Each structure stands twice: as structure tokens, then as C-alpha cells.
């Protein structure tokens, strides 16, 4: 099968200043390569500072890559101009970690979810409302919430709204940047199951970024482990969890609270 997205030797360097004023460039992503097949989940696992979020932003075309290629639908996203990117953007959407930050507190839920359609400018107001309602129902947000503001919702509900917003443009790839990390354990399971269901329903591919290897094991088909900007281990999820080889992977396995289980629906509390 053709991969949906293929990352080739991606490098992301931040230009900065160290103490004393000399130039101190920081390489967040150091020549990373991987690919994601359609309708599958690739988990990107690593400690904070390993470069996962930088990679996510590059893939979502929210940051310019320093070097490397991102092949998507036959084109190199890294080489495209903003004008050309506009047509591609709906197909790659990102959901951020902290919904308190990623949802505009002054807008209502309905407005937030409909915003992508507004920005793309192709649908009428009524259609926007209808589409938003549709996708909100799919993520489990009842209609009574649509006029509310984010501060009136719980963390889990806000994340549902963020997911709904990402889905409304019917993307093919969803980048999930630590979307469960800010939630309570019991809610994590619910949202994780929602993600699995949505994947099945919409035929999405996921790039699931996390520091929780156990969760990655539940949701992902393939796991890529990152450390200090480089990939240190990658392979099928089960294999990685059962016999981790790199020290980084091993410490991540050790950090997970329970024994790794087989993939499947997460046990809800």
C-alpha cells in the first residue's frame, strides 16, 4: 500500500542565542524519516524535549522545515508556497494538547467548530451550522453545548470540541499532539476510545504523539521512539512493547504504570 504521508530526512533547527550572546542553534528534529499508511495509527513517543512537538508542527505546515521532505499526495509539502498549501491544508489537521489554549475563550462551541469552514470560505452560514452540528454529534457533544463557551466545559468536553473542529474539513491525516496528556485518567480512556471509533468511521490516519508508551501501545499500529531529535527505535507496536531494545524505549516502558497489554479498546474506569 502507498503510504499516505512520507517524511524524508526532516531537519528542524531553531536559531537562538546562548548565554553570552553567541549563536547557539538548537536542532529540534535531526534527520527523521518515517511514513504512515492510510487508516493506520503511528505513535510518536518520547520524553519532553525529544522534538515530537516540533515535528508535529512541521508536519502540520505550521513551521517551516530547515531541510528534508514531506511527501503527501505526490507533492513535497516542505517546498510548497503558502498559496499552494492552502488547498492541501484541510487534509492534514492538528489537535493540540491543551484545549484551554487551543479554543478561543470568547467564541461559542458552535462557532469554534465551524471556523475552519468559515476560513476556507466555501460554505454558506446555514451549511456551516449544519456541518458543525453533525460533527459535534459524532464526537458526543449534545446540542445543548453548542451555544456554550469553552470555560463552561470540562477538559474532556473541550478536547472533544477540538477534535470536532479538526474533523470538519474531512482530513485524511489527523496529528494528535499529546491530546490526552492534559486530561484525567478516566477521561483519557473515553477520548482514546472516541478516537478509535472516529478512525474507523472516517477512515483517518493518525499521528499520535505522546510520552505515554502504554497508551501508544493501545492505539497504535506502529511506534516510533524519539530522543533528542533523532529516531532511536521504530517498528510494530507489539514488538516494541514486548522487547524494547534502545535504552530510551526501555525507560519509557518502565515509566508506564501497568504491564503492556495487547492493542484494542482501552479499559474505561
Amino acid at each position, binding site marked *: 500500500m502507498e503510504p499516505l504521508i512520507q517524511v524524508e530526512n526532516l531537519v528542524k533547527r531553531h536559531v537562538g542565542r546562548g548565554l553570552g550572546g553567541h549563536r547557539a542553534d538548537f536542532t529540534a528534529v535531526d534527520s527523521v524519516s518515517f511514513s504512515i499508511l492510510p487508516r493506520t495509527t503511528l505513535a510518536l513517543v518520547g520524553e519532553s524535549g525529544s522534538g515530537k512537538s516540533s515535528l508535529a*508542527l512541521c508536519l*502540520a*505546515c*505550521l513551521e517551516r522545515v530547515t531541510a528534508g521532505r514531506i511527501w503527501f499526495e505526490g507533492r513535497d509539502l516542505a517546498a510548497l508556497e503558502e498559496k499552494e*498549501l*492552502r488547498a492541501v*491544508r*484541510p487534509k492534514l*489537521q*492538528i489537535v*493540540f494538547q*491543551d484545549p484551554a*489554549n*487551543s*479554543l*478561543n475563550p*470568547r467564541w461559542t462551541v458552535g462557532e469554534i467548530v465551524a*471556523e*475552519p469552514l468559515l*476560513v*476556507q470560505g466555501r460554505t454558506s452560514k446555514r451549511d456551516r451550522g449544519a456541518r458543525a452540528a453533525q460533527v459535534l454529534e459524532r464526537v458526543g457533544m449534545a446540542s445543548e453545548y453548542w451555544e456554550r463557551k469553552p470555560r463552561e466545559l470540562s477538559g474532556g468536553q473541550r478536547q472533544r470540541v*477540538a477534535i470536532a*473542529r479538526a474533523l470538519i*474539513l474531512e482530513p485524511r491525516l489527523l496529528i494528535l499532539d499529546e491530546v490526552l496528556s492534559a486530561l484525567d485518567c478516566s477521561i483519557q480512556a473515553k477520548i482514546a476510545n472516541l478516537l478509535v471509533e472516529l478512525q474507523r468511521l472516517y477512515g483517518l490516519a493518525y499521528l499520535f504523539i505522546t510520552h505515554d508508551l502504554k497508551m501508544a501501545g493501545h492505539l497504535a499500529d506502529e511506534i516510533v521512539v524519539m530522543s533528542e531529535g533523532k529516531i532511536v527505535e521504530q517498528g510494530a507496536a507489539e514488538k516494541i512493547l514486548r522487547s524494547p531494545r534502545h535504552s530510551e524505549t526501555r525507560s519509557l516502558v518502565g515509566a508506564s504504570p501497568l504491564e503492556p497489554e495487547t492493542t484494542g479498546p482501552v479499559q474505561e474506569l
Partner: protein
Amino acid sequence: MSAPSRLLACIAVLGALHLCVACAGFFAPYDPAAQDRARPYAPPMRPHFVDAQGGFHLLPFFYAQELRAGSFDQYEENRVRAIPVRFFVTGASYHVLGVLPLRIHLFGGGDAPLYLLGSDGYGRDLLSRILVGGQVSLLAGLIGAGLTLSIGLCIGTVAGLLGGWKDEVLMRIAELFLALPWIYLLFAMRAFLPLTVPPLKAFLLVVMVIAAVGWARPARMVRAIVLSARERDFVRAARGFGASDGYLLRRHILPETASVVLTQAAILVPQFVLAEMTLSFLGLGVPEPVPSWGNMLASLQHYNVLVSYWWMYLPAVAMVPFFLGYLVLASLLQADYGTSKMDEALAEI
């Protein structure tokens, strides 16, 4: 009282005060330029409720004041000439908002000299002058604040969005403007403009100078907000759907600045009214014969006025209710927008 209704109450009171001044022609019994050479520096009139025959009146009446024989500034009441207060009288002509000519006044003494708050050196009714003078001072404050905030908003947004050296340059210039004690800057700017100008031009000059001095602080505050708003994930997400910079600015970033701009407005308007008053008081602002609270106080620089004619001080008191209103408004706005006290404190610096 709940927060929104407190805010509304405050705005209502301020609005009423401004309305009085805006309709100064109606509320003022006399034409502010009409001189009564027979009654210079007449003191405020005393209300009487019991007339010579012992009859009680609910509505107070006044006795006309005449100069005591042989004196040039001592007045006595002429018990023969009683002036009742009449409402909705026809008096001097005035223009509402500069357009509509009317002659009806809220109250007045008709042809009789009803100078409730006394008169100035030319025999002009002080109450009328205070009301009309308020138009000049308040307008200067409001327009000046509007201008300054617009400039500050533009510059702050541009600096926050562009970043890099352009941002540095703009902020350094702002720092320069903040480095000067503002009155000195005001004076320096005013100094280098023509001194004797016709009143309208002087007014515009004053407003422009005040506005040019005050933009730096709002600009810095707006820039800080723009910088932090740029980094918010919802702005990133919007870019992810393909939003243009213009859209981001309009829909996400500028609304964040609204609270700062409003609070700054409530703080700046009284400051600018005061700036106009200061300039006019010192002779650098709006000149005679157009009344402004500032130039009406200028006569107090003469010792004899200071000693003998205390009512000439009243224009200085006239602005206190406005100050109070704006102060309450500013603190209510700051409370509602919930920044931490420290942020407020630092933001003002």
C-alpha cells in the same frame, strides 16, 4: 449589584454628566460671552425662601445684586428686585451640536441677572461659562484619547506582528517618548508651534499635541497582547485551516486588545482633559474668549483674584465628578477583565 449592572450604572452616570455638558446651551441660563459690565466679579447669589412679606416659597428666589455705592467689588442685595427662578425660558440663542439653533433654556431669570455662581471680571455668568467651557475641555480629552489610542493600537499591532528590527525600532521610539516627563514633552511640542492662533486652530493643536505625547504606553500594552495572542494555539489552529494574516488579526488578535484599549480609554480621558486644562491655564491652550475650564482658572494667577474672588475657583471643581466617574469606570473595567494586580501595575509602567 452585579458586575455588569455596576458597569452600566457607572456608564449611565458618566453619560448623564456628559449630556449636561453637551447640551450646555440648554442648561446654561446665559450666553457665555455676554458681558454685564455693571456686575464684574459678582459673588454667587444666595437663595431665599421667605420673601419680604413673610410668605414662604417652595422654589427659592434671588435678589439682584448691585454694586455698593462707591465700591468697585462689594455687592449688596437689592431687596426691591426679586428674581424668581423660571423654567424653560427663552434666552440667548445657541446651537445644539453646532448645527441646530435654539433659544430655549432650562431655567433663567429672563432679563434679570441670575448669576447663580457669580460672575467673572467681565460680568459673564460663571455657571454658563463652566458648562460651555466643559465642552471644550471634555472634547479635547475625548478626541485626544481617541487619537492616541488609535495611534497606539496601530503601532502596537504592527510592532507585535512584524517583530524583528522594525519592532525594536518602534519600541525604542516609544521608550524615548516615555523617557520624558510627559508635561515637559507636551510643553516642548507646544512650544514649537505658533503661539497665537485662533481658538479653533488652537484647540486642534492642543488635541494633536496631547495625542502625540500619549501613544507610547498604549502601544506597548497592545504589542504585549499581540505578541502573546500570536502564540496561542487557537491562532495556530486557524492558520492550520488556511487563515490569512488579515483574518487572524481581525478575528482573533485584535479582539484580545479590546479590554486593554477600553481600560486605557477610561484612564486617559481624564488625564487628557487635565492636560488641556493645564495648557490653557498657562496660556498655551485655548485662548479667550472661548471658555475652557483651564483658561477660566488663569485669572487665579492674579493675587487679588485669589484673595477676594473665591468663586473663580469653581471651574476646577467642575471636573471632579467627571474624574470620579472615569476612575470608577477604569477600576470596574480592570476588575471585570480579571488581570492580576501585578499585571496591571506592571502594565501601567
